[in-house]
Structure formats: structure tokens, C-alpha cells
């Protein structure tokens, strides 16, 4: 087989080198693979679903087996998802695996990014790949949101409606942007087919392209590794690509798929027949989006009423939490390697990872960010929290409005102190002299 290929491509040398390529052996390096494998499962189940789904807002009369909706006028899109769920054999399992895999996909990207952030793996030369990763996170959220809107049920229609309202809030351009994106004033019939094209073609193509770039850069730059005996900036220590790493990855792929299959079969998700078809004049309560959009929903809920009108130009308040905040968040995230370099003036290449406690200030900032987004996500369910804690939505919202300022700062500061003292202890144990990093002030300067 290899001889046959080599006779045509001359790859024996490359194959030898590649098969022996070293992969460091650490569980945290599998988080990115988890994202990749969830994506593969998304593609596989997604192709199946595409064969049965109809991206069509035309009204039809439901005549399927789900009795409560019998005879009701629903969109062809909604009807086709009901058909997938109740009539297509193994359709429901495929649909539920697809939805769970989407949640795991975005989740594993986020956890993978946390690993990369706290260990400083984003530093030169991997700053490039960090940016690719941030764009992939954006695309992942976009894929999730467009897919979530396709069944044309009441809940997803609510999400679209809010997206439209955020888009229309952009000063000067908003109404034009919203009309171009939706094809007119909300609700429009054409939006379903547009979302469909984005969800099954544009976004997956971009993700596949960028994942390829992500992996090619990784292959070229070689892996980072944690500090340890025999590990230096000049080598990579670990297991060979073949057979060890390939076997391990294959096992992870199968196990990821296994867990998602169990979830898809046993745990109900997005029962659109309970939500009912989209109707512009009703909305269900409580309504929550998928988890990775929760932070945006929470920001909209927490932001105070603050429509500004200056010189006849109104800036509706959803503009700030809906456009400015996420824009800033992703800009800071994408630019982080350069921001940190500005402060530390550390231009060097790094292939050895930091122990998170080596750089307490980074731990502090990272934890503060996580608390911030965590609180926003909680705020996205303020009505559910109100029921859980038997409080009024007003009380929960007001508490969160204060917490969003207090907790990230104090939590970040606490994390900074803990990381610093852990780092100190470790240095003392190892008998090291107090290094430069320990004199770093809380602002990150020296």
C-alpha cells in the first residue's frame, strides 16, 4: 500500500517523519480534539438531517402522527422537523445527537481556549493560531444560532426576533442592515432559507477551512509541552503519532460519539412539538436560548433602560449589550497575545507552557472574565432563577446588576492572590530565588 502510494507521490520520507512526530502526553491536550470530534459528529448527523429538512416558511396543514398539532397550520420547515422527530426512523436520535453535539462542540472550544489561555500557549509563535481559534469560536456560535433557528418553532423564532432587534439598533445602519439580513421587516418568510444556507453551507465550509489551517499551523509549529525533566524550549517530548497518538485519538472519537449517542437517545433536547410553531404574536415564558448564547441574552436583560437621543439620532439601549459588548469581548480576546506582550515586553518564542501560577495576573484576569461571562449567562435565566430562589425577577436582576461589577473584580483579585501564593510556595519549595514574575504588580507592570 505504502509502496503503491510512494510510486505515485514519493511520500515515504514524509510518511516516516510524520508517523514518528511527537505528541506530548497530557489529558488537557485532548480538549481541542474533543471539539474536532464533536464537529465531525455534527457533520455526519447534519448531512442526515439535511436530507429530510425543508427550509420553507410556506404554511401547510399538519397531518402527521403528533395528535396535539393535528390539522394545525404550520410552516413546512416546522412540519419537516416534526417528521424527522416522529416519522423518519432514527430521525429523532440523529436530531438529538446533532443538538447535543452542538452544545458540546462550543463547550469544548471554550474549555480548550481556557487551557490555552491559562498556560500561556497563545504566546509567540502561536499567537496566529490563537486568532484562528477565536474566529472558530465565533463561527461555532454562529453555526449554533443559525441551526437552532431552523425548526421555525416558537422558541427559536423568539431568538431571531431578538437578533433582529439588536441588528436594527445599530446607529445609522441598523434598519438597512436588518432589512438586508432578514429581507424586510420582521417576521419575514425568506429568513428560513437564508439561515439554512448559512447553517449547512457557508459556516461549515468556513469552519472546515479554518480547522484545516488551525491543524496545519499546529503541525508545523509542533506542540507546546508542560515543564518537566528533559523538556526544554528546544525539544518536544511525548508519544509518537503512530501508533500511540492515532489510537488514543480514535478512542477519544469513539468515546465522544458514544456519550453523544447516549445523550441523543436518552436525554430529550429541544422538544419543538412542546414549544409549538412560530407565531409572531405569542411567546412562551420562560424562554432561554442554548447555553452559548446565554451571555448575550443575559447582557440584554441586565442592561439598564438607556435609549440615548443626540442631535436627532437615537441609540437604542440594546446596541450596548448586544453589539458593543460582544464586539469588545471578542476584540480583546483576539488581541490578547499582543495585549499581554505590550505589558510584559516578552517578544520571545515560547514552547514550554506556564504553570498557571507562574503568571498570577493572567489567572486573575482570566478568572475575572470567566466570572463575568458566567454571571451574564446566569442573568440570561433570571426568570428561572427567580422561580428557583422564590424571589422576584426584579430582585434577582438587581442583585446581578451589582454582582456583574463586584464579583469579577473581587473573584479575579482572589484568584490572583491564590495563584501568587501558590507560585510563591512552589518557588520556595524548589529553593528558587524569587523570580521576576513575583515582583510583578497587580497591573501587570514590573
Amino acid at each position: 500500500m505504502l509502496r503503491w502510494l510512494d510510486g505515485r507521490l514519493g511520500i515515504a520520507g514524509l510518511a516516516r517523519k510524520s508517523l514518528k512526530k511527537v505528541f506530548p502526553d497530557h489529558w488537557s491536550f485532548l480538549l481541542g480534539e474533543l471539539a474536532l470530534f464533536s464537529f465531525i459528529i455534527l457533520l455526519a448527523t447534519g448531512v442526515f438531517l439535511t436530507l429530510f429538512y425543508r427550509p420553507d416558511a410556506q404554511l401547510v396543514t399538519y397531518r402527521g402522527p403528533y395528535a396535539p398539532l393535528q390539522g394545525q397550520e404550520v410552516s413546512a420547515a416546522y412540519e419537516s422537523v416534526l417528521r424527522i422527530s416522529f416519522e423518519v426512523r432514527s430521525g429523532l436520535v440523529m436530531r438529538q445527537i446533532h443538538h447535543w453535539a452542538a452544545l458540546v462542540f462550543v463547550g469544548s472550544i471554550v474549555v480548550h481556549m481556557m487551557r490555552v489561555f491559562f498556560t500561556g500557549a497563545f504566546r509567540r509563535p502561536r499567537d496566529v493560531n490563537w486568532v484562528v481559534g477565536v474566529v472558530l469560536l465565533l463561527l461555532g456560535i454562529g453555526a449554533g444560532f443559525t441551526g437552532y433557528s431552523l425548526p421555525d418553532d416558537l422558541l427559536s423564532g423568539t431568538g431571531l426576533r431578538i437578533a433582529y432587534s439588536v441588528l436594527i439598533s445599530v446607529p445609522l445602519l441598523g434598519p438597512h442592515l436588518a432589512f438586508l439580513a432578514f429581507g424586510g421587516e420582521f417576521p419575514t418568510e425568506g429568513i428560513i432559507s437564508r439561515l439554512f444556507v448559512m447553517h449547512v453551507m457557508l459556516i461549515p465550509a468556513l469552519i472546515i477551512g479554518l480547522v484545516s489551517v488551525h491543524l496545519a499551523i499546529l503541525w508545523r509549529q509542533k506542540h507546546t509541552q508542560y515543564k518537566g525533566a528533559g523538556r526544554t524550549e528546544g525539544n518536544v517530548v511525548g508519544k509518537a503519532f503512530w501508533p500511540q497518538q492515532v489510537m488514543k485519538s480514535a478512542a477519544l472519537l469513539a468515546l465522544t460519539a458514544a456519550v453523544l449517542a447516549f445523550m441523543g437517545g436518552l436525554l430529550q433536547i429541544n422538544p419543538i412539538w412542546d414549544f409549538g410553531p412560530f407565531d409572531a404574536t405569542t411567546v412562551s415564558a420562560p424562554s432561554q436560548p442554548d447555553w452559548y448564547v446565554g451571555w448575550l441574552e443575559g447582557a440584554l436583560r441586565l442592561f439598564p433602560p438607556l435609549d440615548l437621543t443626540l442631535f436627532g439620532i437615537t441609540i437604542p439601549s440594546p446596541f450596548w449589550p448586544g453589539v458593543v459588548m460582544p464586539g469588545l469581548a471578542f476584540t480583546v480576546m483576539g488581541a490578547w497575545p499582543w495585549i499581554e506582550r505590550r505589558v510584559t515586553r516578552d517578544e520571545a518564542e515560547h514552547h514550554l507552557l506556564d504553570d498557571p501560577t507562574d503568571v498570577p495576573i493572567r489567572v486573575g484576569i482570566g478568572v475575572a472574565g470567566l466570572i463575568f461571562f458566567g454571571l451574564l449567562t446566569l442573568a440570561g435565566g433570571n426568570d428561572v432563577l427567580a422561580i428557583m430562589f422564590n424571589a422576584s425577577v426584579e430582585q434577582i436582576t438587581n442583585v446581578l446588576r451589582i454582582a456583574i461589577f463586584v464579583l469579577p473584580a473581587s473573584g479575579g483579585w482572589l484568584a490572583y492572590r491564590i495563584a501568587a501564593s501558590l507560585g510563591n510556595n512552589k518557588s520556595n519549595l524548589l529553593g528558587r530565588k524569587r523570580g521576576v514574575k513575583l515582583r510583578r504588580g497587580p497591573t501587570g507592570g514590573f
Partner: protein
Amino acid sequence: MKPERVVAVAFAVSIMASMGLVGVYVSGGQAQAEGALLGTALGGLGVGLAVWSVGLLPSRTRSEEREPLSSDDALVDRAEDDLHPSDITRRKALVRLMAGAGGTLAGALAIPALSLGPRPGQDLFTTPWTAGARLVDPEGAPLRPGDLVLDSVTTVYPEGHVGSPDAQTLLIKVDVQDLEMPEDRIAWAPDGCIGYSKICTHAGCPVGLYRAKAHELLCPCHQSTFDVLRGCSVTFGPADRPLPQLPISVDEEGFLIALGDFTEPVGPGFWNMTGGGG
């Protein structure tokens, strides 16, 4: 147990589960069984591979040298030279012109994107409500003030536009004595039949919940709360503007009619909403 045995058992379990999966499919399909069997089949495969990779493969650690990524300066310089091979006179100007041509072409090709949607025009400023339009319930039946029960809420539309997304209006019957609003606005609520746009001024959700006791309308999306007796001013939540009030009157046959469209845009805000469009 020896790793070989574990691997063999795991793969055997996987095979049986896969066969079971086919069985379930053939016999009509059942979501839970399919998920569990598919999970077992994949899980058996995964466990087998994992035990194989941990227990049966040589655990030898390798070390690989890392060549520096950056090339030496001279090579970079030569590559730079290769990139800009000739010394054309006025190269800079020509390159700029080429970039200009490319950019202009890109702009021209982007124009068809405008086909994606109409210009907003007056769409955001108007709804199907017109002077004299009767208020009808979701079944299309016109309403008299006497048809409404005190503290009840009905979604109404202009006659002929049932289901219209931007005309949807909440008609609430209150005691006129309780209204604390300017006289001219109270005049828009004959017999305490007061109408407000149902579309939230924050993010456009239908304001679907009415707390009759407190006379509050609550938007289920982001919990904006509006005081029905005070012109639907915002008492809580992220909305900043009251729900627009529909001017209502009664025609000679005693049916509720609109005196005209809403006097301000309904729904979520946009930059020129106070300008009246154009």
C-alpha cells in the same frame, strides 16, 4: 484481566450492540433503544481502542528536536527580493492603481447584495392601523366595549389584518377612574378600553403577560414591565420607552375603532425613530 481480554470483550460488546441497533431499526425503531445501542457500540469500540493504546502499545517516550521556526535574516531578505523581482519605474503608483481597480470591482460586485432586502422606507413607521378601522379579536370578530370584562386582556387587530405582526395590539379593559394619564390620552380609551402595541419597545417580543391585580404588562423575554394605568410607562426592566398607545374610539354602531395609526413607531428602537422617517 489481561488487556488483550478487555479489548476483545469490548469489541465483542460493540459488535453485539451494532447488530442490536440494526434489529431495532428493522423492527420499527425506538429512539431510546437506538441511542443506548449506538452508544454501546461506539463505547465498546472506544474502550477497546483506549485499552489497546494504554495497555498494549509500547509506552516508550520519544523526544524530537525543535528546529527554530524563524529562518536566518539573509534568507528572508532573498525571499523578499524574489517577491519583488523587477524594478519597474513608478511601481508604487501602478500597484496602487491595481489595488484601486480591484477594490472598485469588489465594491461593484458587492452591490447585488442590496437585492437581499428592500430599503426600510416607511415600513418601520407605519402599521396597518388606519382611521376608522374596527378592532377585531383573533377570530376576526369586531368588539364593543360591553363585550370586554373588567381587567381582561385581548389581542386585537385592524379588521382585515388578523395576525398582522406589527399591528398586534393589546386591548385591556380598566376602570376609567383608575387611569392616571393626560386627558387627551384618557380620551383614547372609551369606557376604559385601552389599547397598547403588543410589541415590546426593547427587543420586539410580544408582551404576553398581564398581571391584572397590579395592572402591569410583563414582557416574557427580558422582563420589561409596563404600567397600564400610566400610559404603559416602564416600571422595570431594560425597555426605555412606553408601549405606544392606540387611539381608540367607538363608531355609530357601537364598535371599537381606531382613530388612526400609532403616533410613534412600534417595536424595538432604531436610530431615526424620532425623525418620522423619510
